């Protein structure tokens, strides 16, 4: 039952990051907000796996972490010198 409370706290954090992503004045602001959301979502997936009792969610979280790392580095390189 206590896991639901933690889930609510983390979801409120994701909503705050999404507000910053809508508001942010420049492109790097939005990139930072999206990267923060991606890291929080990895933790959230592991917590969801604990709530539902499914071991498969850990694989999903691992693949998600790898893909968002590659995506963040690609966005940073694009912001630095273009394609």
């Amino acid at each position, binding site marked *: 039952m206590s896991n639901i409370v933690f889930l609510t706290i983390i979801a409120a954090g994701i909503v705050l990051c999404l507000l910053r992503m809508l508001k942010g004045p420049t492109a790097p602001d939005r990139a930072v907000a999206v990267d923060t959301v991606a890291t929080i979502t990895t933790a959230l997936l*592991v917590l969801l796996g604990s709530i539902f009792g499914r071991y498969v969610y850990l694989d999903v979280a*691992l693949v998600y*972490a790898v893909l968002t790392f590659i995506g963040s580095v690609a966005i*940073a390189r694009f912001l630095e010198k273009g394609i």
Partner: protein
Amino acid sequence: MQVIGIIIIAIGSIFLFLGSLGVFRLPDVYNRLQAGTKCTTLGAFLTIVGVGITQPGWLPKTLVIALFILITNPISNHALGRASRKSGVPLCDRSVVDKANEFEEYKEKE
């Protein structure tokens, strides 16, 4: 073991929320980057390891995920900060010092 794991998950989720609050509230992209990197790395590490402690069969794979986040999250955020400095995002008004101006490749473009 259950109680220890739940306490660790609680600390981690509070850290995650505080990091998101910093991303929303701070005035500048560099300050936001700092809040979004440090709090999020520690919070995600504690949350994932806490889940591994409450369910002992899951501990090896959760440790792998936590170590991967601990290594790659500072790297990607460092790349984002360097890219935003090089693409000329201004600092906020209350900034006191900008050491990066001393280096040739980070000079402000006129």
